[in-house]
């Protein structure tokens, strides 16, 4: 028996991170390229920082998509519209003379409840029917939310207070807008908080377990349905942050606010590998910087081509590496 235990313990611990060496090399090369570019050109640096802010928003909404994809196995087409609706909620609160950041926090709470209710009322009834049924429901939600928001607030442009002011910082000749830095930091902070929740809390662990193996999760006492609803709530919270950060970037609020963002987020999620939260963030940041630099340095790529270029990226990834940068196949021994 002693030899048996010895053979059990002798095998070396394999650390599986799911990150392949070519992908790491690619990312490091990209980072070095950006660093050299930023050091040698002020415009390049400006565009990169602005792209990171855009990309953080894409990454945040992509993260919401990934969260739901992992739990419910569908892409939530209504994610952008849910984000837009919660941004209108924040707008309404500021209209009632709440300060921007108080409205921000209250909106997050509202978004969580909203996400949970959407799951319970619309997704749960069809969840076990078929994937297509859930997809159709999310498309229906897209239309429903868009209609309700337009009905309540109208389709005309709304304006909100600027959360970060309009200051510009200058660092060795490069101008960084406070807005870009603020947006970037808020988005990254949200991602880190979410990661901490999933990695280090019992709730996060139960949510991961429910998404990975619902039947096994139920056997250890996890209320799986409840966890799925919480997942939708958290995704809606991420979306709300993305919406409230998109509004100041665009200076106006109107019902189609998040429609292009959702498409960028979709491209970002696919680029990162639809299963991978980390990939969604990296994919978002990459896409944001890439689109900005293309717009700056490639003459014919005007802003009208931003969406088509994002789609080209999407197509490119799906053809060349359908699992994206960080999507992985499981290592499993039986």
């Amino acid at each position, binding site marked *: 028996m002693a030899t048996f235990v010895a053979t059990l313990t002798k095998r070396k611990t394999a650390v599986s991170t799911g990150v392949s060496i070519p992908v790491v090399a690619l990312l490091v090369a990209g980072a070095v390229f950006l660093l050299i570019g930023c050091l040698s050109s002020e415009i390049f640096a400006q565009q990169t920082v602005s792209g990171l802010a855009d990309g953080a928003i894409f990454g945040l909404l992509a993260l919401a998509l990934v969260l739901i994809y992992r739990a419910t196995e569908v892409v939530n087409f209504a994610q952008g519209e849910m984000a837009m609706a919660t941004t209108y909620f924040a707008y309404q609160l500021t209209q009632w003379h709440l300060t921007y950041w108080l409205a921000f926090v209250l909106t997050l709470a509202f978004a969580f409840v909203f996400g949970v209710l959407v799951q319970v009322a619309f997704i749960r009834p069809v969840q076990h029917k078929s994937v297509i049924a859930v997809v159709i429901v999310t498309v229906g939600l897209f239309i429903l939310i868009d209609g309700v928001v337009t009905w309540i607030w109208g389709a005309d442009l709304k304006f909100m207070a600027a959360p970060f002011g309009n200051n510009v910082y200058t660092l060795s000749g490069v101008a960084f807008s406070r807005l870009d830095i603020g947006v970037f930091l808020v988005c990254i902070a949200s991602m880190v908080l979410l990661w901490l929740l999933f990695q280090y809390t019992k709730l996060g662990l139960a949510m991961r377990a429910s998404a990975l193996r619902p039947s*096994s999760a139920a*056997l250890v006492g996890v209320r799986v349905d409840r966890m799925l609803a919480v997942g939708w709530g958290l995704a809606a919270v991420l979306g709300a942050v993305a919406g409230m950060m998109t509004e100041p970037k665009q200076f106006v609020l109107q019902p189609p606010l998040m429609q292009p963002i959702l498409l960028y987020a979709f491209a970002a999620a696919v680029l990162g590998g639809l299963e991978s939260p980390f990939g969604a963030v990296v994919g978002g940041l990459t896409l944001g910087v890439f689109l900005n630099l293309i717009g700056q340095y490639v003459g014919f790529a005007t802003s009208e081509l931003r969406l088509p270029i994002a789609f080209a990226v999407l197509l490119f990834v799906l053809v060349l590496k359908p699992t994206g940068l960080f999507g992985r196949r499981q290592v499993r021994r039986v």
Partner: protein
Amino acid sequence: MPALLELEQVRARYGAVQALHGVSLDVEEGEIAAVLGANGAGKTTTLRAISGNVRREGEIRFAGRRLARTGPDDAARLGIAHVPEGRGTFAELTVWENLRLGAYTRSGRLRDDYARVQTYFPWLEERRNQQAGTLSGGEQQMLALARAFMQRPKLLLLDEPSLGLAPLLIAEIFRIIRELNEHEGLTVLVVEQNAHIALQAARRAFVLEVGRVALSGPSEELQQHESVRRSYLGY
């Protein structure tokens, strides 16, 4: 004293297929009981009926309560740990995360329980941060046992712990099951195709045939029983 678990005329079906035609059995506190039978006799379904993984009719009483409409999560909360076919291990999560999930229904610190788990499975500590899916089959079965133990269950349901394992490992697994029973007072209902090892470990056994208990009694008696010997022990 009433038994910890009692099944009375329990029936269950998968769609049009009736899997259990009225199973009656009982498990007393502190014992190891075994359910034997051929493929398709309803062994797994019996466990699934107890933990609420399949819709069932008939009477199931556990620790004085009727399990009527309970789902698997409720069963876990009532103190039933079910290690299913395929072990129910979260392959994508680490060993330690699997153990934490085992203790999901409990509050408070896990350190003492983990220390006790380690006395039975000392190798776990070294593999703590390893993905469970990279463990060997035997290790995964042990992890499943350890996870169930972290739940501090009143009753452990084990579905074919010997499946796909080498004889040496099977013996090791059953040795640990018996230790958990003797030293920790864990009540176990184990389903097995390997009647030989199951009858050695269990105090009593129930032989299922086509969704019914065909035969039951103390293990020693069943070991001597003519038809059990011929059908399940092979001599």
